[in-house]
C-alpha cells in the first residue's frame, strides 16, 4: 500500500500551478482518500441548541433594552420646520460627515460605490487569497507605491481639510511603515504580526478605522449647522 500520507484530497484554485489531482491509484485497490479527520458535532441537537442559546441571550439583552429605553419619537413630520442639524440614521452618519467635506458626487456616490465594489471583489484577487505579508516580496517597489498612494491620499485629505479622516490615515500609514521595517523574524511579536499582514488587511483596517471615526464624529460631535460640538455641551 502506498503511503496514504502522499494523497490528500483537496481543491486548489490554481489549476495551472497544481493540476487538480484528486487521487492516485497505484495498485488494483479501491481508491482511498486521506482526509483530515476532525472531531465533529451533530447539528441536531448540539449546534442548534448552542445557536438557540446565543440568540436567546441576545433576545434577553434586547428585551431589557426595550423595557428600559423608549425608542425616540419626535413631533409630527413638518416639511416647513427643518431641525438643525438634520441627521441621517447613525449608520449613514459617516457618509453624511463626508458630505460635509466633499461634493455630493464624491461623498455620496463615488465613495460608497467604490466601497461596495471593493468589498465584492475582495475574494476574486489572488493577492487577497495568498494573503502574504505586504512588504515581504518586492519590498522596494511596494514601498514606493505605498509612499505614493499614502502621500497622495494624505494630500488629498489635507486639501479638502478632512482632518477627521487624515488622522486615521496617518496612523495607519505609520503602522504600515513599521510593518515595512519588520520581518517574520523580528524580535517583537507585534512586529512579526504586522509584517505578516497582507494588503487587504491594511485597506480593510483603514476603512474600518475611518468608518468608526467618521460615524462617531457625525453621531456625537456635530451640532447645529454641522458645526463641531462636544457631546457634553448638549443642545
Amino acid at each position: 500500500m502506498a503511503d496514504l500520507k502522499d494523497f490528500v484530497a483537496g481543491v486548489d484554485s490554481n489549476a495551472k500551478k497544481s493540476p487538480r489531482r484528486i487521487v492516485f491509484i497505484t495498485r488494483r485497490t479501491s481508491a482511498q482518500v486521506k482526509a483530515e479527520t476532525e472531531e465533529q458535532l451533530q447539528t441536531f441537537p448540539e449546534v442548534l441548541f448552542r445557536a438557540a442559546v446565543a440568540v436567546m441571550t441576545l433576545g434577553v439583552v434586547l428585551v431589557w433594552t426595550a423595557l428600559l429605553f423608549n425608542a425616540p419619537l419626535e413631533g409630527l413630520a413638518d416639511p416647513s420646520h427643518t431641525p438643525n442639524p438634520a441627521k441621517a440614521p447613525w449608520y449613514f452618519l459617516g457618509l453624511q460627515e463626508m458630505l460635509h467635506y466633499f461634493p455630493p458626487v464624491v461623498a455620496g456616490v463615488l465613495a460608497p460605490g467604490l466601497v461596495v465594489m471593493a468589498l465584492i471583489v475582495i475574494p476574486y484577487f489572488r493577492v487577497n487569497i495568498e494573503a502574504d505579508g505586504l512588504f515581504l516580496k518586492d519590498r522596494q517597489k511596494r514601498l514606493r507605491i505605498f509612499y505614493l498612494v499614502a502621500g497622495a491620499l494624505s494630500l488629498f485629505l489635507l486639501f479638502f481639510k478632512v482632518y477627521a479622516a487624515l488622522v486615521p490615515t496617518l496612523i495607519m500609514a505609520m503602522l504600515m511603515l513599521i510593518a515595512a521595517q519588520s520581518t517574520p523574524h523580528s524580535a517583537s511579536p507585534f512586529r512579526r504580526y504586522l509584517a505578516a499582514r497582507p494588503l487587504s488587511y491594511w485597506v480593510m483596517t483603514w476603512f474600518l478605522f475611518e468608518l468608526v471615526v467618521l460615524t462617531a464624529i457625525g453621531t456625537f460631535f456635530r451640532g447645529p449647522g454641522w458645526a463641531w460640538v462636544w457631546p457634553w455641551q448638549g443642545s
Partner: protein
Amino acid sequence: MAKTVDQYFDDLQQTRLWRSIFRSGPGSSTLKRALVIQQNVFLHLFSTKVRTRVLSFSATWYLGTLTLGTFLILVATGIPLMLYYHPSAPQAYADTKDLQFVVSSGMFLRNLHRWSAHAMVFLVFAHMFKVFYRGAYRPPREFNWVIGVILLLITLLLSYTGYLLPWDQLAYWAITVGSNIASAVPVIGDKIHFLLLGGHTVNANALLRFYVLHCMILPLTAMFFVAIHFWRIRKDGGLYNHDSEPATVRARNAGSAVKETN
C-alpha cells in the same frame, strides 16, 4: 411503572401523526439526529455535522447566528406592529402615538423592533469584519462573501426604509437628508431620487413606497438571500476554519514530509 419523560416522548414520536409530519421515528441514534436536519425543509440548509473547533466562541463570535436572531425578532415584532399601522400621512404618526399610549405593550413592541434593527445593522457590519479578518472569504467561499455584501446592503435598506415609518421629524429629515444623496448621482440622480420617493420631496407617496419596501419586498429578498447564504455554507465546505482548509493541511503535511525525508 412510571414512565420517564423520554419514554413519553418516544411514544409520541411513534404515533402516526408525528411520523406523518416529521417522518423520522423515535430514537436518538446518529442517523436519527442526522435525519432531523436532513428531513426538515428549513434545517436541511445546514450540514448534519459541524466541526467542533469552529463552534468555539472565538471562531465566529456567533455573529452570523445573532444576526439571524435579530432578523427573527424583527419579523416577530414587525408583524404585530403592522396590525396597528396605516402607511398614510399623518395617520402614520398618530398610529405610532397610539402604539405608545394605548396599544397593550405597543411601546414595548416598537422599542424591541427599533433596538433590534439597530442591533442587526451593527451585527451585520461586525459579522462582515469578523469574516474578513478570519479570511473566510477565500475560495470556494467567494460567492457567499458576495451574497453577504448584498445582505449588508439589504439590511441597510431595511433599516433605512423603516426609519421613515413613524413619520416624525426625526424620520422625515433623516430620510430627506439620505434621499438627497441619491440626487447626486450624475445624469440620472434626480430620476433615482424621484423613483425612490415617488415624488420630489418626502411625502405620503414616499411613506407608502417605503412601507411596501420595508414590509414586503426587502424582507422577502433578504430571506431569499439568507437561504442561499446558509445553504452555501454547507456547499462550500462548512464553517470556515483556517486550520482545516485543505491547502493548510497540505502545506502542513508537505512540511512534515520534508522533515521526514531529511
